[in-house]
């Protein structure tokens, strides 16, 4: 049997497959009952309506079963609300490497930060423009680089 925390933390986000749920900051806790061996995993959604949550729950259970922890429960909490500030440095680097511009820091809680310039994750140019305030998933917006002309996703600061 391997460590349940390591097993749960290795689950990748089903919609952004380059980053784990741990790096994304949605894995909140992994607890193992020393008596029964029952594992309780606590996660929180990025957006309330995130349609990937069901897949994430079943992926966690599958990863724990494979690691020797078939008795597992996945709980979902909503407080404190997820923030893009919870994405780890490693996670941000992986997003950028996959062509997704990482979010700007959230300055004031509850207020959507006004991002003045998003650096192109491909060529690094700050000469970019927003094409659409919403993107292919709830957590992204669509941008384009004016220097290299490539469109790219930006994880919206939340």
């Amino acid at each position, binding site marked *: 049997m391997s460590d349940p925390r390591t097993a749960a933390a290795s689950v990748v986000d089903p919609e952004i497959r380059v980053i784990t749920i741990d790096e994304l900051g949605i894995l909140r806790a992994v607890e193992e009952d020393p008596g029964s061996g029952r594992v309780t995993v606590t996660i929180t959604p990025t957006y*309330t*309506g995130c349609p990937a949550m069901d897949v994430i729950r079943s992926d966690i259970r599958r990863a724990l079963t494979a690691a020797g922890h078939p008795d597992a429960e996945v709980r979902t909490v*909503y*407080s404190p609300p997820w923030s893009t500030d919870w994405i780890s440095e490693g996670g941000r680097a992986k997003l950028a490497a996959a062509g997704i511009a990482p979010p700007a820091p959230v300055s004031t809680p509850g207020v959507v930060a006004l991002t003045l310039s998003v650096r192109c994750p491909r060529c690094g140019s700050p000469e970019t423009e927003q094409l*659409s*305030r919403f993107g292919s998933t709830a957590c992204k917006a669509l941008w384009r680089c004016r220097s290299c002309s490539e469109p790219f996703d930006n994880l919206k600061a939340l």
Partner: protein
Amino acid sequence: MNGPVDFTLALGDDALIAAQRLAEWTTRAPEMEEDIALANIALDQLGAARLLLSYAAELEGAGRDEDALAYLRDDRQFRNVHLVELPNGDFAVTMAKLFFLAAYQLPLYTALAGCSDERLAAIGAKARKESAYHLEHAALWVKRLGDGTEESHSRMQLAVDQIWPYTHELFAADPAAPVDPAALRPAFDATVGPVLAEATLTLPESGWAPAGGRAGVHTEHLSYLLAEMQVLHRAHPGASW
């Protein structure tokens, strides 16, 4: 209304019906980016609706769940305001509806985040971040259309005139509720006023104020919406895939 159950149900119904209406734009929006935007906003509303209806079902304690509340109630049992059930109309009407709804939901969820009910506070803290983005988006369109061409201005003004009377129902006093909607009015007015002014739009005289949604008395439009939303679940109860 009768305490936290009715209050939670009302908010959940507002979000659910708003989600269903917004989803009608999918594949029909004026441009691809807006299609994606409206679908995303609908998804946020659906997310909030699921949390609120699940909690309302728990508070009710009658063995129902979010699905039973969404799919197995008839129109007279829904507690949403008329604003959200009104047809989408043209794009300007949809933006007027979304703008007024978001300008109400943002202070509502913000106030909920600080209320004494832990579950509602968690939902409020989560949903207000999404509401802030909806409000920004709708406000941009209201300004762009209002301060745009002669045609877009006249249609945005018509939309505001048509939808404005339905905003009053949002703020009907309910002192027993975890957050009294009447207390949200100043924040709503402070948001709406400057945006409309920048959009060169004017508010109609406040007079007619249709209401009844919170008591289950709806416009004819809700039944048609529910028929479409509920038919699959009712035809195949308990089905899964």
